[in-house]
């Protein structure tokens, strides 16, 4: 019986010891080498934090294999990993560490210097040094004996409406459920050559990493620069013979926006999957026109149900203006549409909130009971025994052909450039600036821009963004800013969002 995702590595290392498992722009590593390295890291770590179990260990990540040795080393040590991008603003890193209170932070050499500026008392351990530990298999076996499949594997942070990011805690069982489903549904095998686009602190990469390991494939970590200098991207895909990509919708859109395929075509692609935000058929049709033989899959789901809960294999032509279905639920996942009050099922054919049952449910938000209780609730359709469902906050309805169609969000959460963002998190950060008197954000869906309305004694766009950069990652920056000496208020003396929306966005 499979208790952990580590079995994937153990089995594939047995079958394909000398095959490349991961490669980045500088290094590559075989299954056997990787297995040795992560066991060394695990041993080194376990000796530094003896007898800690199921505790958080943060990893300051780069787009390097080394970061992955950190993840697996932590898993073998019986703890769970929390990836944090080393380029995040220091204050945001501190917020995440405050929530986690990790027993250690693992760093690469270049990411390590960041920790000098971060307030953190615990051990900061260098991955390179940990890799030089000699592995103690007896110790790792001892740890493995006590492991159960519902132990946490990772915590991935997502934007929080109170200004504090939430750490979504996911178990081994949930990842096994997901990766088994992917293999079954999409026919993955050991010929898989995967091109990884998603950063490792983004749960899209979970599918890349674990599908590679389960199927005995190879994963190339594509340098980030190639997604702006896209001519090189296609050369890279061809040079590495990449046949599978599981990318953010925004990455596919860049290719269309820059009309990349008019000059160069990928030659080996067989499977293209996308998620993160609604895929416009205009973009998908561009891909389908140039690469008609590829299987395209629309994936839907939030981090809280372990990446994806529904899929749609694109099986018919769509007009540019049509909406693409999010499809049907994966095996071992049940989807219910609940009404506004989350008390009963929505009427057949009506819009309801997508709520999920299944092993894919995250364990909750780490160290945040309040937020966990809001979203992970007792199934209202079953009052007889404890059964948790996750309420996504996404509204959807069934089309006549039985496919689910995404409608909109219930709240102020948005999807922007593939990132999930709570507008109130941006508002909180802007309102905290001393020279800003009041502020609010509205998302311009048509233009795909975050619009900030702020009140200050004088216009100060540049200063505002500079200060914001100390707290927020760049993808949360407003794309358009409107300065007011006095923001309009409604009857309740609140900022009049409706008026702003009508006069600045819809116009």
């Amino acid at each position: 019986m499979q208790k952990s995702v580590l079995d994937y590595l153990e089995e594939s290392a047995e079958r394909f010891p000398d095959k490349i498992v991961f490669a980045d722009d500088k290094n590559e590593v075989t299954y056997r080498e990787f297995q040795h390295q992560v066991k060394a890291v695990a041993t080194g770590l376990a000796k530094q934090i003896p007898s800690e179990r199921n505790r958080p260990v943060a990893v300051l990540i780069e787009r390097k294999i080394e970061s992955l040795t950190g993840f697996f080393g932590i898993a073998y040590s019986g703890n769970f990993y929390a990836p944090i991008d080393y380029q995040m603003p220091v204050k945001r890193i501190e917020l995440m560490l405050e929530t986690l209170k990790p027993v250690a932070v693992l760093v690469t050499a270049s990411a390590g210097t960041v920790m000098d500026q971060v307030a953190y008392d615990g051990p900061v351990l260098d991955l390179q040094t940990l890799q030089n530990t000699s592995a103690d298999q007896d110790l790792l076996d001892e740890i493995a004996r006590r492991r159960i499949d519902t132990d946490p594997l990772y915590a991935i942070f997502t934007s929080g409406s109170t200004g504090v990011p939430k750490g979504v805690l996911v178990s081994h069982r949930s990842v096994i459920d997901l990766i088994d489903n992917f293999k079954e549904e999409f026919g993955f095998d050991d010929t898989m050559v995967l091109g990884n686009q998603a950063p490792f602190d983004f749960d899209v990469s979970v599918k890349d990493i674990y599908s590679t390991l389960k199927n005995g494939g190879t994963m190339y970590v594509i340098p980030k620069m190639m997604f702006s200098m896209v001519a090189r991207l296609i050369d890279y895909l061809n040079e590495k013979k990449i046949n599978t990509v599981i990318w953010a919708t925004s990455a596919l859109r860049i290719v269309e926006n820059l009309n990349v395929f008019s000059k160069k075509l990928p030659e080996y692609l067989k499977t293209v999957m996308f998620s993160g935000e609604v895929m416009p058929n205009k973009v998908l049709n561009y891909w389908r026109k140039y690469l008609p033989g590829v299987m395209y899959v629309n994936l839907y789901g939030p981090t809280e149900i372990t990446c994806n809960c529904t899929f749609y294999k694109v099986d018919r032509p769509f007009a540019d203006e049509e909406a693409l279905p999010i499809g049907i639920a994966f095996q071992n996942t049940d989807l219910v549409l609940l009404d506004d009050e989350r008390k009963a099922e929505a009427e057949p054919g009506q819009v309801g909130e997508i709520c999920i049952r299944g092993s894919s449910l995250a364990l909750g938000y780490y160290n945040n009971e309040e937020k966990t209780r809001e979203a992970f609730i007792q199934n209202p359709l079953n009052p007889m025994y404890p059964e948790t469902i996750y309420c996504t906050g996404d509204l959807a309805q069934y089309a006549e052909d039985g496919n689910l169609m995404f409608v909109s969000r219930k709240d102020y959460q948005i999807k922007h450039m593939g990132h999930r963002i709570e507008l109130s998190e941006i508002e909180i950060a802007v309102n905290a600036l001393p020279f800003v008197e009041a502020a609010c954000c509205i998302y311009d869906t048509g233009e795909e821009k975050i619009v900030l309305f702020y009140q200050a004694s004088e216009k100060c766009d540049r200063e505002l963004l500079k200060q914001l950069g100390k707290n927020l990652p760049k993808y949360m920056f407003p794309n358009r800013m409107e300065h007011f000496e006095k923001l309009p208020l409604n009857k309740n003396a609140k900022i009049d969002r409706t008026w702003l929306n009508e006069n600045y966005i819809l116009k």
Partner: protein
Amino acid sequence: MKEQLLDILNDLRPDVEFEKEKKLIDDGVLDSFDIVSLVSELNSEFDVEINVMDLEPDNFNTVEAMLELIVKMQEEG
């Protein structure tokens, strides 16, 4: 022309000191979304057609390099 380019860049990313940066691409100061917007702005403002093959770090790492690219394209066009 340089002023016009700087206006576009400052509008795009008010938080960046463009004249000081020497590795806008290599250091990841400009990301893929910036490049997509920038290319369409440059095409319409300077009446050029920057295509995929011109998207090389050497052409976008500095303000000067971008200027050179635009001039080259205008001469060819």
